[in-house]
Every structure is written in structure tokens, then in C-alpha cells.
């Protein structure tokens, strides 16, 4: 039985915060066809490890992340979270979305405070802690703003506070800084590293930006172009910490690892581009 073998793998890798093993994800398309997004992927994130997953656009990175979040059930394989097989939503993880995920009818403060409601924290205390978290992400003066009154970067800060206030053991991030401009991305990257360094949660960070991936993470996992994407590379990034995202890009070691990973990624990007030509891949 493949299934039980996979479960056994998870038990073995009990130290891993996220353990994906033998993941297949196939979608049934509206026209009756099937699309295999991800094929036989095994990857794990150790406790306290910051792992970036890179790959060409449309390769199924986000799909894989959704499997780790429990938002999507894999067609085959098993998801282990902190040594337990995952069933249903992964509530031990915080998930940072690419798109706006704040409730537009709540202020920044309400958006952050409401994240504590499922844990049964009394409203007064939740508000107090939300205020504190908004200050930590640099939004002390913006607590009563509604999302539409905030800039893209400020909204991401609120989203970050909303996720972190729950103190999840794991952070799942789906190109969270994708829609932001280059400068804001760097500022947000540094903020993320700063917050992360305080308690070192396990992070699975999906991006298509290799520089961002290297500058943030301890390990970069490269996915192949879809369909049936697999893992084609797994690189350790041993750059010193604490890092400054902007400065580290000038580091020679950064260039070495970048060149090394890019050799692998380039092939996949070209493949994705060739396959995507003539048909628009969602």
C-alpha cells in the first residue's frame, strides 16, 4: 500500500513541520478532461526552517502550498504537519495570500483582532493584542483605517499581523509580496525576516522571483514547469543571518548560489514559456 508507506514516512520525519510525500494533484476540468498539476512531489520543511519554493509561472507552486494548507486535498500522497497526518484545514499554519484577503468591511484593527476570535480570546484582550501587533508591523497610526484606505504594502502588513497574532507554528506564504513594487517588496522582506528571526517559525514561501527566494530563505526548492510538475532541485542557502535583503544581493556568495540555481530554473522557465506560447495558462 503506497498510502500507508507515505504515512510511515511522515512518522519517520516527525521533526518536520511540513512533510509532503508523494503528492499528486489532478484537477477535473470543466470540459471533462483532467489536468495533472503536480506529480509525485516530496518535500519537507524542518522546524524553524525557511524554505522557498520557486518555479516558472503556472507550475503548480501555489497548488502545492494549498495542499500543505489543507485548502486542497491531494489526489495521492500524504501531508504531515508537525508529525501528524493532516485532515481538513491546517489550522496550525498561518497562510498569507497573494491577493487581498482582508475583510473590506473591517478596519485594520478589527481585521487583526478577529483572528483571535476562533481561539476564544475575549474581545477586549484581542483588541489590545491586535494594537500591539499593528505597531510591530509599523501601522500604529493606521489602526482605524479600512483596507481601501491603505496602500498595497500597508495591506500586506495588516495581513501579516493578522496571520502572526495567532502565533502559528508554520507560515505558508503564496507570493505574498508579488503585487507590490520593488522597493516595498524589499521593505516587506526585511520586515518578514525581522519578525521571523524572533521565534523562527517553519516557513514555506512560494515565489517566482529567485532573488527574493535566495535572499529570504535557508533552502530553495525548484519546481519544474507544469503540467505534472516535480522537484528538480533543492539547494541550501548558507548566507549569514541576520540579512538585509537589499545588501545581501550584492554579496558574492549570493551570486554564486544564484548562478547555480538559475542553471536549473532557466531550463524550466524556457520550457514553461515554450508550452505557454499560443495558449494562455491560468
Amino acid at each position, binding site marked *: 500500500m503506497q498510502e500507508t508507506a507515505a504515512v510511515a514516512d511522515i512518522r519517520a520525519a516527525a521533526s518536520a513541520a511540513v512533510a509532503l510525500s508523494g503528492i499528486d494533484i489532478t484537477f477535473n476540468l470543466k470540459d471533462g478532461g483532467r489536468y495533472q498539476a503536480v506529480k509525485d512531489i516530496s518535500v519537507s520543511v524542518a522546524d524553524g526552517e525557511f524554505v522557498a519554493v520557486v518555479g516558472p509561472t503556472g507550475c503548480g507552486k501555489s497548488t502545492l502550498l494549498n495542499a500543505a*494548507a489543507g*485548502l486542497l486535498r491531494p489526489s495521492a500522497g500524504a501531508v504531515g504537519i508537525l508529525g501528524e497526518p493532516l485532515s481538513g484545514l491546517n*489550522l496550525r499554519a498561518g*497562510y498569507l495570500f497573494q491577493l487581498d*484577503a482582508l475583510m473590506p468591511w473591517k478596519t485594520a484593527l478589527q481585521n487583526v483582532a478577529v483572528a483571535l*476570535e*476562533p*481561539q476564544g480570546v475575549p474581545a477586549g484582550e484581542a483588541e489590545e493584542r491586535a494594537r500591539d501587533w499593528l505597531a510591530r508591523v509599523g501601522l500604529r497610526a493606521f489602526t482605524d483605517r479600512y483596507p*481601501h484606505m491603505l496602500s498595497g504594502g500597508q495591506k500586506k502588513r495588516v495581513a501579516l499581523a493578522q496571520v502572526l497574532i495567532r502565533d502559528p507554528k508554520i507560515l505558508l506564504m503564496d507570493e505574498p509580496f508579488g503585487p507590490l513594487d520593488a522597493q516595498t517588496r524589499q521593505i516587506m522582506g526585511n520586515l518578514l525576516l525581522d519578525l521571523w528571526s524572533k521565534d523562527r517559525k517553519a516557513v514555506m514561501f512560494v515565489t517566482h522571483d529567485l532573488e527574493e527566494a535566495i535572499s529570504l530563505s535557508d533552502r530553495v526548492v525548484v519546481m519544474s514547469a507544469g503540467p505534472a510538475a516535480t522537484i528538480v532541485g533543492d539547494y541550501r542557502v548558507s548566507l549569514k543571518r541576520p540579512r538585509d535583503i537589499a545588501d545581501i544581493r550584492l554579496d558574492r556568495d549570493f551570486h554564486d548560489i544564484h548562478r547555480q540555481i538559475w542553471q536549473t530554473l532557466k531550463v524550466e522557465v524556457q520550457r514553461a514559456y515554450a508550452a505557454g506560447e499560443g495558449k494562455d495558462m491560468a
Partner: protein
Amino acid sequence: MNAHSRLKITLLQVLVMVVFLLAWHITTTTWLFAEPKKMQFFFSTPIDVIARTWKQFAGGEIWYHLGITLTETVLAFVLGATGGVLCGFIFARKELLAAVFDPYIKAANALPRVVLAPIFALWFGLGIWSKVALGFTLVFFIVFFAVYQGVREVSQTVLANARMLGMNERQLMRHVYWPAAMTWMFSSLHTSVGFALVGAVVGEYLGSSAGLGYKIHEAESVFDVTGVFSGMLILTIFVLILDTIVTMIENRLLVWRPGQASTSANG
């Protein structure tokens, strides 16, 4: 918009009214088209209409009729909106229910509601409740469709995020679905308040003993054109006031909506 063009527009707007009233006055008080007496029988004169309207307000009797119409409008709106929100909400969350009732709802909505007025008069009598019922049928569907659509089209990202924060079904209702439903209810507020009033006035017009619709109908039945126009003028003032109140409520409740805050800042 700068102050200069704003003033200009206001002046031009006043000019349009003055020209209209003058044209009306001249055609009905001179021999330009026909004998003034005959013209006045058909069209009255602006001065008569304004004088009559003034007299109605001064006399105090009109307040009673306004009160009746307002009561009917508010009742029709509150009941219709409540029903629409609840049904729209339930249908949006229960796929099967929506699928089963879909053709019946469409059919009911396609029916011109005015034909129901005599039946409502039969069922609920000539008092306010037959008018409330007519207004209800109009308001209900507007709010129902708005809320149904709104709840079904809640952003999937916002929903997924709320779930990942660990919200249970009840918390999702409270923090995601319900606010979404209310948003759509308020976005249909102008239309639905307008239709509540239409229900009330048409109902009164077709059979009643009080209200603005009744006043207009009463004047019409004795060929009192001045009375009809005066009734229409009062109705217009009434609608404008109601609409202003609705706009104020809307701006207050939908502060979080993009554009809303900036609009009130400009105004």
C-alpha cells in the same frame, strides 16, 4: 469640481426651472394657444399649484396623509428588506433550495405587481396593510436578488483566509457572509426605498381613504388639476427628502467602501 463651475451649474439649473415655470405660466394665462380658462382647466397654473401646496401644508391636513404614506413606505421597506435579506441569505447558502425554487422566483418576479393590488385590497382591506403588502412584493425581490448575488460572490480569497484563521461556520456567517449580504442590501437601498413608496402610492391610488395617492386620486376624480399637480409636487418633495435620508444612512454605514469616504469629503 471647482467652485466656479459649481455655481454656474446651480445658476443654470435654476434658470431651467424659471424658464419652465414661465412657459407654463404664459401658456395658461394668455391667449397664446387658447382661452386661458380652458387652458387652466387642463394644465392649472404654476402660481395656483404653489398656492394650493402652501395651503395644504399650512392647513395641516396634508401631514396626516403624508404620515400614512410614510408609515406604509417604511413598513413595506422594513418588512420587504428583512424578508429579502433572510431569503437571499438562505438561498445563497443552500444550493438545493435555490435550484428548486429558481423558476418560481423568476416567475413571481416577472409578474407585474400592480395586478396584485386589488387582491391585496380584498385580503388585507382598504387600510394600510394592503399597501404595505404591495410595497413588500416590490422591495422583497430587489433586496432578495441583490443579497443572493452578493453572498454567492463573496471573494473566495477573503473566505479562504477567514477559514485559515480557524473560523467556524457561525463565525464565517458573522464576519464574512453577513457583512457581504448587508453591503448588497444597502447598495440596493435607493431602489428599494423608491419601490416601497411606489407600492404605497399606487396602492392608495387604487383604493384607500388616506395617503398621498388617495389625495391625488381624489383630486383627479373631480377634475381638480391644481389638486393633482399639487399632490405630485408634495410627493416629489417627499421623495427627495427620503432619498437624502437614505444617502446619509448609506454614507454612514458604508464608510469602508472604496470611494464612499472620498465622496463625502468632496461634498
